[in-house]
């Protein structure tokens, strides 16, 4: 009798699992589609670019795009990590300006608006990284241990850091960055900019880390359900602080690339240019959820490339200067809507 019952139970289980398996296979297809949601948009944009301007598809223009977006891309990786864990950090743009500013100020001569300390440029890079660590740690402590709201903490931090960035050089822009300091942003390997290679590496490493490292998985767990992660014994607070630190360090590296590219650190770099909007836009267009726990590096990278291509087309077409911002904003909104339409309910949140 009990044998019959067991058999019956096993049979029901089989049927149910077969049904759910079919359901899930279609779900898997849909999720793959979501990851590639931006691909058709990108293809259309590239066709548009090629039609509008014969220069668009040349190697020099494409590597130019690559160099332009790599600094932004590295910051987007940082912001994506923070978004994935269910946080947000507005101050990445200020770190992107302040970290290279402090370093440049300490290494260039007083005549180039330096502090006069003329430190070794390699030491400068260490200082740059240290600034990133310090800012991220401060944010993390205030938000995680101090239980302050991340939005307002990082907003306050943004203004503070941008003020320091302006203050130490009295509004000047240190220039004449020594070779090693400018290398990352200005050198090429063959025809390919070093910054593009490094940015691509950072994307790949971050993507693999998120997929295969237990801390990467912990980021998804915490962003997806913080209390469940805690109940499973994950050291939630430690990981969260760590991610804020990683995000700020990546922002500092992005800032180093930008400084090298233009071979000076403008007092407006970062906050003054308002790059945080592009950072958030790229991440969200790329399917990284502002609610946490959802998104990946493939999406984030395609968001960055999309913004870069649009910017490049506008530049090539000599879009009227006074209208650039308006067009930029419109493009971001359209891209968001497209991502939503293609990606379905869960995307672009």
């Amino acid at each position, binding site marked *: 009798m009990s044998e019959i019952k067991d058999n019956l*139970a096993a049979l029901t*289980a089989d049927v149910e699992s077969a049904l759910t398996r*079919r359901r899930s296979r279609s779900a898997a297809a849909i999720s793959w589609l979501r990851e590639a949601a931006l691909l058709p948009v990108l293809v259309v944009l590239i066709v548009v670019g090629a039609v509008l301007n014969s220069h668009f598809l040349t190697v020099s223009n494409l590597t130019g795009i690559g160099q332009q977006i790599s600094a932004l891309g590295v910051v987007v990786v940082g912001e994506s990590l923070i978004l994935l864990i269910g946080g947000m950090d507005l101050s990445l743009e200020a770190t992107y300006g302040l970290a290279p500013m402090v370093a440049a100020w300490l290494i260039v001569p007083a005549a180039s608006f330096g502090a006069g300390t003329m430190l070794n440029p390699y030491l400068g890079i260490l200082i740059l990284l240290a600034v990133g660590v310090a800012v991220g740690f401060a944010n993390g402590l205030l938000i995680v241990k101090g239980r302050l709201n991340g939005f307002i903490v990082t907003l306050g931090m943004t203004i503070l850091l941008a003020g320091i960035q302006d203050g130490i050089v009295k509004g000047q822009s240190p220039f004449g960055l020594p070779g090693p300091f400018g290398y990352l942003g200005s050198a090429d390997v063959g025809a390919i900019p070093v910054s593009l290679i490094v940015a691509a590496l950072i994307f790949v490493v971050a993507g693999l880390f998120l997929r295969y490292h*237990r801390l990467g*998985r912990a980021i*998804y767990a915490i962003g*997806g359900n913080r209390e469940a992660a805690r109940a499973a*014994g994950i050291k939630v607070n430690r990981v969260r602080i760590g991610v804020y630190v990683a995000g700020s360090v990546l922002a500092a590296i992005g800032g180093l690339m930008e400084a090298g590219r233009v071979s000076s650190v403008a007092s407006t770099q970062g906050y003054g240019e308002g790059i945080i909007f592009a950072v958030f836009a790229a991440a969200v267009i790329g399917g990284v959820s502002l609610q946490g726990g959802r998104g990946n590096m493939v999406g984030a990278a395609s968001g960055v490339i999309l913004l870069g291509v649009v910017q490049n087309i506008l530049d090539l077409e000599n879009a009227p200067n006074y209208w650039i911002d308006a067009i930029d904003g419109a493009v971001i909104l359209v891209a968001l809507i497209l991502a939503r339409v293609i990606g379905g309910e869960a995307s672009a949140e």
Partner: protein
Amino acid sequence: MIPAVSAAGIHKRFGSTHALRGVELNLLPGRCLGLVGRNGAGKSTLVSILSGIVPPDAGAVRFDGQPAPSLGDVAAWRARIATVFQHSMVVPGLTVAENVFLGRQPRRGPGPLGLVDWRRMRAQARTIMADWGFDVAADTPCGSLTVEQRQVVEITRALAAGTRCLLLDEPTAALERGGVRRLFDRVRQLREAGVAILYISHHLEEVFEICTDVAVLRDGELVLAAPMTEVGKEDLVTAMVGSPERAGPAAPAPPPAPSRPRDPGGTQAPDLVVSSVTAATAGTLLSGVSLTVRGGERVGLTGLRGSGATTLARIVAGAAAPDAGEVRLDDRLIRPGDRAAALRAGIGYIPEDRQAEGFVPLLGAAENITMTITERISRAGLVGPKRREQRAAPLARRLSLVSAGLGQPVRELSGGNQQKVTVARALASDPALIVAITPTRGVDVASKELLLAELDRITRQTGASLLLASDELDDLVICDRVLVLVRGEIFTEFTEPPFDREALIAATEGLGVR
């Protein structure tokens, strides 16, 4: 006498559950009707229907003999009947007077342009408070009031709206003894002034003290309704539990308890020692509770909501920190409120609310199950989906987890299978002590039996100890002894399975021999 409220032939279904089956209920002016019943008997549903929050599927509610207002007309309902819920409904940022007149402030000037007449509002609030002898200042912000004072504000709000019928839903759940006394005085005073009161409580002794009549709900039916003077405690407990044959030893068939063969390897699980744990959280007070769970012992904790059984289990699991007291496993102090430390010490945790703490909905079943052992299964920090699934598969099979592959997001699984993931996650770490809180809540009967049998088998096989907090008596069948908590203290202990169902229920109500 025309009843202030009469409910006739009320039926309500939620999906496949028939929550209320033809309930008849009358509330008379100047009477206080106690409504009792076990969890899931239909009390909350009845309250929602009487307060005009959900419509009944069949039957009608009448006020003073008139048909009830339409469901959307909140103001009209509030003028007829007011409910003081378990969770306070006052707006913390507003003052007492503003809360009393929320949405119907006295105005100066006509129509939509009329401005709030602050002076009159405060004066009226003061007058009502004074009339009833309530002692709360009208211009205090409600956020700074005690739970008891907030309740007073809610009652005042009802009286100010002209309501002469009150529903009090577990009003003493969050009050300390003095507060309960004063609440009873107020209820008596209201009753004598002709207010009709429905008093819902888990505490039978309160019902005996304050109510004039009593009604018992069981499985959605009103099984008993009588004046208080005509029933005894035994009658109430019997009515709540059901027919005598169901009130026997706790079902389902208890597994043979005595002479349990222990782990042949002979590894003895460590003792758990909890000493003088004190904690105050919303609705629960634990006052200096101590207990010991010997290695391999399976101990049940039970009690009504707010009794502290759940909080105590959470503290042992490191999911909550006590205000004072300590938890030791194998004589080693576990850092309070540090779930990661408790896990390292060998404590597995099946949380009460699986949605909140049990799983990460977007991640796969295997990843959720192995979340407690990522350090163990990763090499240089790296771990792939395949390895996770290898580790999760035996547990998933053991618990008959039904999924479309172990990579399927847990969000897509049924409630019962989500619970299996939650249980598997706790078992994955090979715990020396399993802390389980209502491990079978919201799962179907077959899964329920399977989960209990599996907890029983695993503790026998591995010699792990079990601390099982549950208000479902069926869960306690697998325990060697059961501790009953009442109002944050250990009230009594049952040491010999099978446990008498009726005696257990009486004990949770604070009745019976200590």
